[in-house]
């Protein structure tokens, strides 16, 4: 808990945002803005932020998730919705959903993000990874009409509030993973993307190797070891 004020100082962007538990005219306004520009911020500000550091964007999303979890912060939700909902919709449409179905499922995915905000662990996943897993599970329910058995969860230890250095390190490595994927030869990248959209058979996936996982490997093992240690 002691770490929370540190996040808020670091991320001054969110401290200026309005906080409210009720829908307001501003929510509606930002909704309209999202649809026009794809993000609730005005476009120039967003572009500056991206150029300055994609890393700070990732940390801002983590902070917004904390605000949704702790304060039911609607403007933080609007920011995440503005950035990710159109991408989730794109993901679902590429997976075979019609535009209308993708729209509905995306809304369910984003509502799940709100309801399960307390389960997001930023030492193990970036916000986009977490949203990906929610969208994937809804895709299996809705498009494939199957159950998806999940592994037994590791329970949270007594120190439920993660260390900020661990959070930043993991978010940074996700950024590097994204860059490494982008830097792959077009053909290999295309294969990986198609595997994730379900466009390859099991044998086709087996033939392609070598994901550029890099340092994220050791970071995730560290997080899990710590969790195991806390459980003892």
């Amino acid at each position, binding site marked *: 808990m002691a770490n929370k004020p540190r996040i808020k100082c670091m991320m001054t962007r969110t401290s200026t945002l309005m906080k409210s538990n009720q829908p307001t005219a501003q929510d509606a306004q930002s909704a309209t803005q999202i649809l026009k520009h794809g993000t609730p911020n005005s476009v120039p500000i967003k572009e500056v932020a991206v150029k300055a550091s994609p890393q700070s964007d990732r940390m801002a999303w983590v902070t917004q998730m904390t605000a949704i979890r702790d304060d039911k912060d609607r403007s933080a939700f609007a920011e995440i919705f503005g950035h990710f909902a159109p991408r*989730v919709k794109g993901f679902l449409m590429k997976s075979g959903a019609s535009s209308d179905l993708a*729209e509905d499922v995306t809304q369910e995915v984003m509502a799940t993000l709100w309801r399960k905000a307390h389960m997001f662990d930023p030492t193990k996943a970036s916000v986009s*990874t977490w949203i990906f897993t929610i969208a994937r599970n809804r895709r299996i329910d809705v498009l494939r009409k199957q159950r998806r058995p999940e592994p037994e969860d590791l329970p949270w230890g007594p120190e439920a509030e993660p260390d900020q250095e661990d959070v930043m390190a993991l978010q940074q490595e996700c950024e590097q*993973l994204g860059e490494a994927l982008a830097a792959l030869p077009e053909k290999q990248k295309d294969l990986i993307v198609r595997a994730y959209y379900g466009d390859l058979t099991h044998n086709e*996936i087996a033939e392609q190797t070598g994901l550029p996982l890099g340092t994220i490997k050791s970071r995730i093992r560290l997080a899990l070891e710590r969790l195991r240690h806390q459980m003892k």
Partner: protein
Amino acid sequence: MTEIRHHLTDALMIGYCAGTLPEGFNLVVATHISLCDECRARMHEFESVGGEILADELPQAMSDQSLSDTLDMIEAGDIAEQAASAYIRPETTNLAQSSSNVPLPLQDYIGSDLDKVKWRKVGGGVKQAILKTSKTASVRLLHIPAGAAVPDHGHRGTELTLVLQGAFSDETDRFGAGDIEVANEDLNHQPVAEAGVDCICLAATDAPLRFNSWIPRIAQPFLRI
């Protein structure tokens, strides 16, 4: 538990994390991950790749009222949750389940006690229990008496075999509790349970097995394997 030596392949990991495997395979993978921290870590890695692919996705415009509709949906859900809050179970119930010999994902299919599974004899002392999943893959529990062999067989598709209790060996290696064998069309094998403890496995195939002697082949439609 002894150390797990046989893990999931990258292709299964991608399929599981992308959500493209048949339900029966998902069940075997999720059960293995529940037992294996190495593959749990790999699951997070492969999900991170999915996260980066999503982050790189071309945005598709949402409708004008989508955010306010979603907030309405959340509000309706929050009200329902408050009303039901007295009955909400804790999200992690591991302590209660720690006495079970069945990993949590499998409990949804067979209950919490391996000793209470309803087995059917398939010959040679081997027993099986077919689990109910979608038809895209068949999944069953196999009970092989200590020292006994499963009939020699090949596969048309992929066969996953996860050891829950005891151990077996075949032409490729020894497989103990928590180990998973991933067999494809190229493997013709005859698993033999180790002496001592009966071997219980969770096995899934996406195509019928091909037995190499004529008796099991005739029996195949009746065994549903």
